[in-house]
């Protein structure tokens, strides 16, 4: 009789232990979504590269106009890399920098890097249907250069859904 009770209690303990381990595993196996932090870092990095102390970088201009050649090596100049810790087929980052005059007219000059396919994710995200497609952040600031006033808009997008969302 004692033997039977011992076996029974061992079985109960095993069931409870398995249940506890399962609950802990399920709860803590969920990923952390750090994309909002990541995209803010990207936007801040781009902004820091473009403007220091309220002034736009002199490299942005050539003979009084925007330097179109600045786009070519922008990532290298600013020390930004789109390499990821995991191999994705497409780039997982995107940013767009637009420059406006003080009268809100577009200067026509912009800086763009990354995967263009991510832009549509922001529009869909606004509708609230698919909140986990990509993380989009837009920041705006003001800067001056040679007495002229400029408005700068930076849109940053990070996808990496497979790593951050379950």
């Amino acid at each position, binding site marked *: 009789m004692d033997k039977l009770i011992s076996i*029974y209690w061992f079985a*109960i303990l095993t*069931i*409870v232990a398995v*249940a506890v381990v*399962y*609950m802990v595993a*399920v*709860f803590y*196996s*969920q*990923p*952390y*979504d*750090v994309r*909002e*932090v990541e995209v*803010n*870092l990207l*936007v*801040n990095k781009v*902004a*820091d590269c473009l*403007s220091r*102390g*309220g*002034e736009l970088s002199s490299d942005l201009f050539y003979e009084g106009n925007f330097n179109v050649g600045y786009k070519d090596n922008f990532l290298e100049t600013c020390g930004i890399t789109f390499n990821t810790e995991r191999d994705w087929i497409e780039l997982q980052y995107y940013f767009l920098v637009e420059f*406006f005059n*003080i009268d*809100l007219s577009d200067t026509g000059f912009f800086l763009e890097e990354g995967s263009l396919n991510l832009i549509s994710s922001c529009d869909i995200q606004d509708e609230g249907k698919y909140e986990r497609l990509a993380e989009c*952040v*837009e*920041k*705006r*600031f*003001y*800067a*001056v250069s040679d*007495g002229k*006033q400029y*408005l700068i*808009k*930076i849109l940053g997008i990070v996808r990496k859904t497979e790593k*951050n*969302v*379950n």
Partner: protein
Amino acid sequence: MSIKNNKRGQVADTITWIVATIILIVVLMVFVFIANLLAKTKKIGGLTDSLDSGGEKEADRVEVKTILAYRLNGLNKFTINNWINESET
């Protein structure tokens, strides 16, 4: 007569154990179900890399650039602020 009474007592004992086991398993299943409900992706909030601009309001890192630019050229502040705040709406 005495054997019959003993049999009844043993059945009652066994039923107690079975009911207790069933209750235990049901309670465990409820906890597992609750754990599954609570388990979800944990979103880490935005970067709060900010500077204290005089104690009134914490300024965003990018916002600081605007503040510094105002010191160089403070014209059209109303237009600029409206344009910047558009993105927050």
